[in-house]
């Protein structure tokens, strides 16, 4: 063979020298390989994600439909038809047997202005004419006392911003003559509730067994009546008025909310040379990294981290809100190391603050090596942190129901405790010394999330977050710096006061 013919001592030397050359791959290789060979194992997590997304979409679509169906003029119109057996109060008008109808209507009126109030009264007359009803004004919801003089009514209305009128009729609403054959007693209640005004919401099924039912004709007539009496500018004015004229206490409450959140994340670390370190005479004790990259020489494996906290949110404008809170963090990652049979002596090369950054050697005995030994093991470096996140959220887009935010926080942090396996100066061993953990640190976080408001006013938030530690985990004495960072999914709930 050609190869054998040309093989010389030199080729043999190369072969012999490289034959037994081994390198131990990092765990990352097997993990990637495993994921490639067994992709089916991913399906459970994908299925759960898909289910979650589908559920959120379903809830969103369902609730949006409910809102659309019930919101006209930024109000709800509901017709209540009473069960005739339980609530009949049939009256005879001559030979005709007619039903009794009750119409409740709630609208907002302008504070200290007669214009809309008078419009409302005029509209009341129109409804009366239209429906041929005997309208009586009563203080159903305690907003207007009908016994008060006219001026007092206006004043009362001005203070409360909302007037509720209950109309009781003794006529069949659709067609009085056609009601002769009817023995049904119907209670019709209609509410025009302006957004954010304190109205009482009727239950879908009341205690006296009234059920919700729509009467298209009645609804159309009432709707037409209100539409004619309140044009768009009026409605907008009422809406704005109600929003901006809350009392001071309500203003503060409306702008403030409390968020509770939890963030499972994956924790990594970025290791580098300590720039304040002065190598000096002991430079020979510091390893030159094989790859020129410290991160690669120290084999690290990401691990699950956890964050939980609460924050107070204060809206300074419709798009911007400030936040401050208290947060707990557990950070950790694993080091792929090797366990020795017998303790080995190694050292850390440290900056000595007393001698002006001249290095000093601190000796340790350790059982953990950075190069292949008796058996492989995992060392866990972790910290327990308490921090005060201070920052803001900015609304990028959205409506009343779903909103998209981006936010950032700075987090002064106290590291309460932790566990530290430090790589030795020659990078051949790991030593355990927690005294090098820095107790005060600073973190920063950026996030973007989707907010979804549920029917009961609870807001659900979810989105990705990146948290980065600005200062090294370890004190300035240590030869290397380590900065932790987490990539996680922040999930929270927000509730208004």
């Amino acid at each position, binding site marked *: *063979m*050609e*190869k054998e013919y*040309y093989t*010389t*001592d*030199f*080729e043999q*030397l*190369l*072969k012999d*020298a*490289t034959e*037994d*050359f*081994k*390198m*131990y*791959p*990092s765990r*990352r*290789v*097997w993990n*990637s*390989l*495993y994921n*490639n*060979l*067994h992709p089916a194992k991913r399906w459970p997590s994908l299925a759960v994600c898909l289910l979650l997304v589908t559920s959120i979409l379903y809830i969103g679509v369902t609730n949006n439909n409910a809102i659309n169906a019930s919101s006209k003029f930024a109000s709800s119109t509901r017709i209540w038809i009473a069960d005739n057996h339980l609530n009949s109060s049939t009256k005879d008008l001559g030979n005709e047997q007619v039903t009794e109808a009750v119409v409740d209507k709630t609208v907002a009126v302008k504070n200290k202005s007669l214009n809309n109030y008078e419009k409302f009264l005029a509209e009341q007359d129109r409804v009366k004419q239209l429906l041929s009803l005997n309208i009586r004004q009563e203080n159903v919801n305690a907003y207007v006392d009908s016994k008060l003089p006219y001026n007092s009514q206006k004043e009362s209305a001005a203070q409360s911003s909302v007037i509720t009128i209950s109309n009781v009729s003794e006529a069949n609403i659709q067609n009085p003559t056609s009601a002769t054959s009817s023995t049904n007693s119907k209670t019709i209640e209609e509410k025009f509730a302006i957004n954010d005004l304190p109205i009482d919401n009727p239950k879908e099924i009341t205690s006296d067994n009234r059920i919700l039912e729509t009467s298209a004709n009645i609804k159309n007539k009432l709707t037409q009546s209100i539409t004619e009496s309140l044009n768009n500018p009026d409605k907008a004015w009422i809406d704005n008025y109600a929003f901006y004229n809350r009392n001071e206490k309500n203003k503060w409450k409306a702008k403030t909310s409390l968020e509770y959140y939890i963030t499972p994340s994956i924790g990594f670390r970025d290791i580098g040379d300590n720039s304040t370190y002065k190598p000096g005479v002991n430079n020979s004790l510091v390893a030159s990294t*094989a*790859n020129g990259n410290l991160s*690669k020489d120290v084999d690290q494996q990401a691990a699950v981290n956890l964050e939980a906290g609460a924050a107070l949110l204060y809206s300074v404008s419709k798009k911007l809100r400030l936040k401050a809170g208290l947060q707990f963090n557990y950070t950790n990652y694993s080091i792929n190391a090797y366990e020795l049979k017998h303790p080995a002596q190694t050292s850390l090369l440290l900056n000595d603050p007393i001698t002006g950054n001249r290095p000093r050697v601190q000796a340790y005995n350790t059982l953990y090596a950075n190069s292949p030994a008796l058996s492989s093991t995992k060392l866990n470096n972790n910290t327990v942190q308490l921090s005060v996140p201070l920052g803001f959220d900015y609304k990028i887009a959205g409506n009343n129901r779903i909103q998209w935010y981006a936010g950032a926080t700075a987090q002064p942090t106290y590291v309460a405790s932790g566990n530290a396996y430090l790589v030795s100066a020659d990078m051949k061993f790991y030593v355990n010394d927690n005294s090098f953990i820095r107790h005060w640190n600073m973190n920063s976080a950026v996030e973007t999330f989707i907010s979804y408001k549920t029917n009961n006013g609870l807001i659900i938030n979810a989105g990705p977050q990146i948290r980065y530690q600005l200062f090294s985990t370890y004190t300035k004495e240590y030869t290397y710096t380590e900065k932790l960072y987490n990539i996680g999914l922040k999930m929270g709930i927000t509730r208004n006061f």
Partner: protein
Amino acid sequence: MTEEQMLAGSIKNNAAAQEALYNRFSPRMLGVCYRFAKNREDAEDMLQEGFIKIFTQLHQYRSEGALEGWIRRIVVHTCINILKKNKKFNESVDIIHANGIHIREDIIPSIMQAKQVVECIRVLPLGYRTVLNLYAIEGFSHKEIGHLLDIEESTSRSQYTRAKAMLEDILIKKNIIHKPRKKLYGDTAI
């Protein structure tokens, strides 16, 4: 776990058997990849790619030769395929007259023991290193190398000659070999 059990289990896509097979051969195969690669990270990528091929083609192994040889062949081919995707590699391996290339002594690693020869090989220019790895260590002929790398057989020969001379020079300077040579470059021994 015996080699037969590992083989049978791996063919059945048994994760434990696959991991055992991987643990058995990956250190040596990473050493092979490291000789071809630019750095350890690239070597690990080559190793990963190689083992994916190994596990997906394992049913084709006929037990006619040593399993390690079969695995090594796949890994080497994977390394070459990955290198060939790099335009710089294609240019460097096709240069016939690579005179004027000098290795600075200070970049030659001064580490001891088994790794030193490999590190000296890795100091060579990419084209030289690849041909030398394939010919001197992996046992490919120049014809096979020409076919593998899409170059002329004569190009492979000249690349190897220069690579060999350069490596000898490095090894002598590092006192790994002591064979005196009168002419280091342009040797036409092949």
